[in-house]
């Protein structure tokens, strides 16, 4: 018999199951891969996920796009039963995840593709699935002579037209370290960069809150030249925004993007297979082509297209042109640097 009470109970439990699907299906949840937002998610959905499905006989997988720092916050809030199985991290957050004991070591000995990676990408805590590259970005309509060096940002003709990001992002911090190095500093001595920033102030039009906001400023003509992420610029270019990327003569800053298995993940085997697919030659070859233009870490991949044109023709060339930074040293001081940037960089 259907009385008011049973109806209400049924409705409430159905509602609860709808709100918390984990309640009823706690045992078999799909593999959760925390990718980055935007074009990264599209690229992984289009190339990596099909490759993973093929390898695992259609194992269920969910992409959960978010920033590295948000991944760490989510996993460290539920260490024993993490809501994510595979994390994607820039070098700074990757070290934070390690320090907080959130990472399961990658089973190197079982991996077929691991040994094909560039030595810099062979990290037993999680191999680098691709590189992110920071160089100079400029608007070719307004900047007639292409810049060649970070120092060009200081040229008087760019008064009020330069954009940067603050140090919250990997891009902002990496840029400051490179500027410090140019002026005699290093990963452990950032002072010269802050001094140089004082002189950059008249040129600054914007200190964007994040790299995404910086990229959109090119669209509005708010900035004409800035340090920029290779992939973010390619997306803008594809939309018809007049913007070009060059690797400065000091070398383009390269960040390894590590792909890591989350500690206590209930889907360890599937997580391994996803990472194996991410570092494999076919997947990286496909991801390197337009429109994704992801810089590969697998030495077997032959560089073609835009990447060969503006970044590197092959692995040796890449080693010559890329600058890697010591993120262990950087990470130890980064909070203090961010605080200092808060206080000193006011327009």
């Amino acid at each position, binding site marked *: 018999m259907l009385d008011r009470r049973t109806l209400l109970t049924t409705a409430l439990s159905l509602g609860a199951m709808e709100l918390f699907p984990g309640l009823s299906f706690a045992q078999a949840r799909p593999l959760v891969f925390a990718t980055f937002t935007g074009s990264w998610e599209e690229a992984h959905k289009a190339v990596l996920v099909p490759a993973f499905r093929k390898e695992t006989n259609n194992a269920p997988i969910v992409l959960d796009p978010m*920033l590295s*720092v*948000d991944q*760490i*916050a989510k996993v*460290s809030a539920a260490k024993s039963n993490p809501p994510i199985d595979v994390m994607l991290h820039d070098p700074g957050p990757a070290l*934070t995840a390690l320090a*907080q004991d959130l990472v399961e070591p990658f089973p190197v000995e079982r991996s077929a593709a691991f040994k094909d990676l560039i030595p810099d990408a062979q990290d037993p805590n999680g191999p680098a699935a691709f590189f992110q590259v920071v160089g100079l970005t400029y608007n070719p309509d307004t900047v007639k002579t292409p810049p060649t060096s970070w120092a060009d940002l200081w040229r008087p003709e760019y008064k*009020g037209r330069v954009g940067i*990001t*603050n140090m*919250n992002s990997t891009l*902002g911090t990496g840029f400051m370290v490179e500027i410090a190095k140019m002026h005699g500093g290093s990963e452990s001595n950032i002072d010269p960069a802050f001094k140089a920033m004082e002189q950059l102030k008249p040129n600054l*039009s*914007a*200190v*964007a*809150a*994040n790299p995404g*906001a910086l990229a*959109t*400023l090119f669209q*509005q*003509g*708010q900035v004409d030249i800035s340090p920029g992420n290779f992939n973010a610029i390619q997306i803008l270019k594809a939309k018809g925004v007049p913007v070009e990327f060059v690797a400065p003569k000091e070398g383009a800053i390269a960040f390894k993007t590590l792909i890591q298995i989350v500690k206590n993940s209930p889907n360890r085997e599937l997580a391994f297979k996803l990472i194996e697919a991410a570092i494999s030659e076919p997947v990286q070859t496909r991801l390197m082509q337009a429109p994704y233009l992801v810089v590969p870490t697998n030495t077997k991949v032959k560089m073609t297209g835009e990447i060969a044109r503006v970044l590197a023709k092959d692995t040796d060339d890449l080693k010559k042109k890329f600058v890697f930074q010591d993120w262990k040293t950087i990470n130890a001081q*980064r*909070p203090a640097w*961010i605080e200092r940037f*808060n*206080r000193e*960089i*006011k*327009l």
Partner: protein
Amino acid sequence: MAVALPDVTTYPLRLASPLALFFAAFFAAPLVALLGLSLQGPDGHLGLSQYAAFLSDGFSLGVLLGTLWLGLKVTAACLVLGLPLALVATRAGGWVRGVIILAVLTPLLTSVVIRTFAWIVILGRQGVVNSLLSSLGLIETPLRMLYAEGGLVAALAQVQMPLMVLPLMTALSRIDPSLWDASEALGAGRWRTFVRVTLPLCLPGLIAGAVLTFAAAISGFITQSLIGGGQMLFMPGYIYQQAIALQNWPFAAAMSVVFLVAVLAVVLAFNALGRLARGYAQT
């Protein structure tokens, strides 16, 4: 024979219990957890060291005061622009009123992100305002409006305007129009009628609107970061930076509690002002 009739003027407390439970679980409990977290010192001991660190630091206090000041400026802008609009909307009849209500409500149906991006287009170096001014020959180099506080106040005021206008319209429409006629018949001019009759009677709506716009403006994380930029720091962005970029949860928790208390103080001050003003208006 006296049969005890059920009292229909009161409702049993248990009717409120589902919502009370919901609030306890999803509002009160996290708030208590936040408080607990904020008492954790850098060395793991319990204490007030995070609060001491925040309150003894001129820079942090400056961010807090700057945020509250921003909220006051946005509220003032909403009030100055919103009150005349609400007056016109309530006194005008027919289609004028309909058009105004539609104009006030439409932005509410659009995401804050989209409205904020629209402001980037308007305020940019080659934006609508700058190109208009330079084509009129009024300026030679583009004005800096994006990533500047003036632009931020304008954008926040537009984004939060409905929160001011809607309560004002409700309050104004409750005023009996014959009061205005009576006031004028007794010799008061328009301005006097506005100050002595309209303003005191719409105070509840005005205060509700001010509290809503103030709260929304100081916590408007998206607009603050997209129009204000990365070097103009306000409390929401500062808390986000400490919690997410630096993973310094105890300090971020302490900042949140300080921010919450400061906002509550300003809201109480709004209410107190309203009560004072009402007392003055009635004498």
